[in-house]
């Protein structure tokens, strides 16, 4: 102990004392052996996970090089997927992927916003935690169950809705279906197995993700500002509009994009519901469309190695799209006022 107290005077002494073999001992005792093992092991785990993950990304990237070399830019612009004729392109499936995701998000976004606002602002305090866990449960429901729900329960009803939309809004190209809506027994099958119905099922899968992020951000809105708004005479909606929504803007955008990323990659509901079709069209109400994940699920079995590479490239493109969307979402959430908490 005394050694610890003395040393500072020694170096600063004006006259150098001739014999200083008394080196001050290092205060830092170094790591105990248990810590060295702990650090070592956790580093090994961390790096092995890093390597596994990075290897997958790199593998997908490298696999797609030959495909891009072979087909060049037309891989992104060609709509047909006919490996036998050596014509392979993903523009139709890309359009289909985004159509399904667009339908899903236009349903999921308002519902997620309403649900999260209801839970954080309107619901009685007693039910809040129950409702929160209901949203979590919704996220845990297997996607095949949502697929069954969409196929067997929603589709028979959604066909009528689609027909109604076509009959009355058919002049909008988006709602057009290639059949006569006024025909006496109208062609029900033309409205079935469409991107619209798949979008409904997918929307229910991705909704809880958006709702969870939004709710978390809304509940962080500062109480002082809420009370200030109410104290100035705002109604509850006025308070939400002037305090909660501006505060949660980052969470709203970020949560929506996160669930968009998930919607783009959903497979099983789409495979169950839509019948595959490879033409570029923006008519979600009409039968048939195709998404990247559906393409992979449908074609991997009979694929030769070069076709498999093409499928992997399609998967890689999908991964890159979802990765960009997720990264943007994370950045938006992190930069918003509500901070970087998921």
């Amino acid at each position, binding site marked *: 102990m005394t050694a610890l107290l003395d040393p500072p005077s020694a170096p600063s002494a004006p006259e150098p004392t001739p014999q200083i073999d008394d080196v001050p001992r290092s205060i830092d005792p170094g790591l105990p052996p248990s810590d060295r093992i*702990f650090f070592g092991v956790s580093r090994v785990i961390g790096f092995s996970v890093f390597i*596994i993950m990075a290897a997958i990304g790199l593998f*997908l990237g490298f696999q797609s090089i030959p495909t891009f070399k072979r087909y060049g830019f037309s891989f992104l612009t060609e709509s047909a997927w006919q490996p036998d004729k050596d014509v392979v392109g993903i523009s139709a499936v890309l359009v289909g992927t985004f159509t399904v995701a667009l339908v899903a998000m236009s349903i999921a976004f308002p519902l997620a916003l309403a649900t999260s606002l209801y839970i954080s602002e309107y*619901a009685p305090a007693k039910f809040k935690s129950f409702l929160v866990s209901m949203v979590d449960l919704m996220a845990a429901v*297997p996607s095949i169950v949502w697929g069954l729900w969409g196929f067997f329960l929603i589709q028979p009803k*959604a066909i009528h809705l689609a027909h109604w939309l076509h009959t009355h809004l058919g002049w909008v190209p988006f709602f057009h279906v290639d059949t006569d809506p006024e025909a006496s027994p109208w062609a029900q099958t033309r409205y079935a197995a469409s991107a619209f119905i798949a979008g409904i099922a997918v929307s229910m899968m991705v909704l809880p993700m958006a709702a969870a992020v939004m709710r978390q951000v809304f509940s962080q809105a500062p109480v002082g500002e809420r009370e200030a708004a109410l104290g100035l005479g705002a109604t509850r909606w006025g308070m939400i509009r002037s305090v909660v929504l501006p505060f949660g803007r980052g969470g709203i955008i970020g949560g929506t994009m996160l669930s968009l990323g998930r919607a783009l990659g959903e497979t099983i509901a789409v495979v169950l519901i839509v019948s595959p079709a490879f033409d570029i069209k923006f008519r979600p109400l009409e039968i048939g469309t195709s998404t990247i994940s559906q393409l992979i699920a449908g074609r*991997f079995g009979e694929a030769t190695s070069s076709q498999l590479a093409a499928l992997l490239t399609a998967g890689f493109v999908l991964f890159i799209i979802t990765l960009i969307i997720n990264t943007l979402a994370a950045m938006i959430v992190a930069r918003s006022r509500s901070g970087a908490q998921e």
Partner: protein
Amino acid sequence: MSELIDRPDSTLNVPSMPPVVVEVTTPADIAAYPIVDAGATISSALPTETVEYAPAALGQYNHSAEDPYATTELPVIGYAPSQLAPSPPVVTEFLTDSGQAAMIPAPRVSYQDEPSTTATSSVIDTPRIINAKTQDEILSFWGSLVGSFGLIWVVYTQLLPFTGRVGFVILWWIAFMLMYAGITAMGNPRTVVADRVAAAGVRSGAFIVFTALTTAILFTFLRGRDALVHMNFYVDDMAGVRPTDGLDHGGIGHAIVGSMIEIGIAVLFALPLGVGTAIFMNEVGGKSARLVRTVVDAMTALPSIVAGLFIYTVLIVTFGLQRSGFAAACAIFVMILPIIARASDVVLRVMPGGLREASLALGASKWQTVRKVVIPTVRPGLATALILGIARGVGETSPVLLTSGATTFYHFNPFDGPMNSLPLFVFTSVRSGQTLAISRGFGAAAVLLALVLLLFVVTRLLARTKVGNR
């Protein structure tokens, strides 16, 4: 503030406590001002030299750095002299319950001239119930609901050639919203109209979502009940069962076993790696940890079908393995590893740093801190992360669709030959299109859903032990 009033901590939030003494800068004046009864939790503002309002006006507030008393509910309010200083505005009361105006809580500010009697009477006012519904609100809601129903019934079923329940409900909802807005607008300002319409919109949105969830669960169990009532459904396999055999033949035992084996292997690897990575990122840290976190975050974006395709290409096409339970487990592992790692990372990140620092300050090593402080604190949260990961993994169809292959019989060796699993069984039997197969598929989906629900309930029970939960 704090030197003006003496608010002993023991009286905070306890209405029956003795009156709080309010001191005024000129103590001689005190006697002149009445002290209000204990128990009346009324808001007040305490004037000081600089005009300043006590922020405790409406009851509970969050703690803020400036005013440690901000969360308190003042049990008793002393009245302040108005002669003091240039008579500041005193907030004497908040809006009492009065009809529709209750929608707009606005403090009534009055300027006090004579402090004694009038001040007292306005202060001892019963606090209004903030969330009470007024008659106007209730009547206009139910009125519009019934009115729009009648209107749409007449228009939809009698006048126009529309059919179908879905269209009816949608039109009813639109008519209701319009009618509700219109009726509210008759006797209320625009802000109130906006408030009510928004509230109705938000409520109906939430209602749709919870209806969808309930119908999805109920529908699965209802359609599956034909298969679920047979005991053989849970224990038998489908070996030798012809497509036309009734539901009292065959079952999904092999799929249940297959699912268990596959998810078991996946979790066996994903749990230590995922949690270890989270610990590495949080407890060891450094530049490399940030790199790992970036990659893990990126891989959460990997679509499950691409994970399946990756394993299919590497293990089955390149290395020539059979389609097997092990390959499926690998695909599930690749899918849930980033999910578990990320969720555990979030759990560890929200753990209060004080605990960690306290342990280190007592001389514990990093490893001792992790083992004795960090892990026990976040264990419920970690369990939640893990179980949600399992729920995702067991329910995901696309990875197993590509990698496992399907069988109809019990098979316990994951390294040899195809192995069925619940989601795959559901998928293949529903796709076959035969009525009996669809019934079996729904039965299997119900079992899968029950499994997920069970995992979910366990998660909730674990999470109830507080700390580190999300």
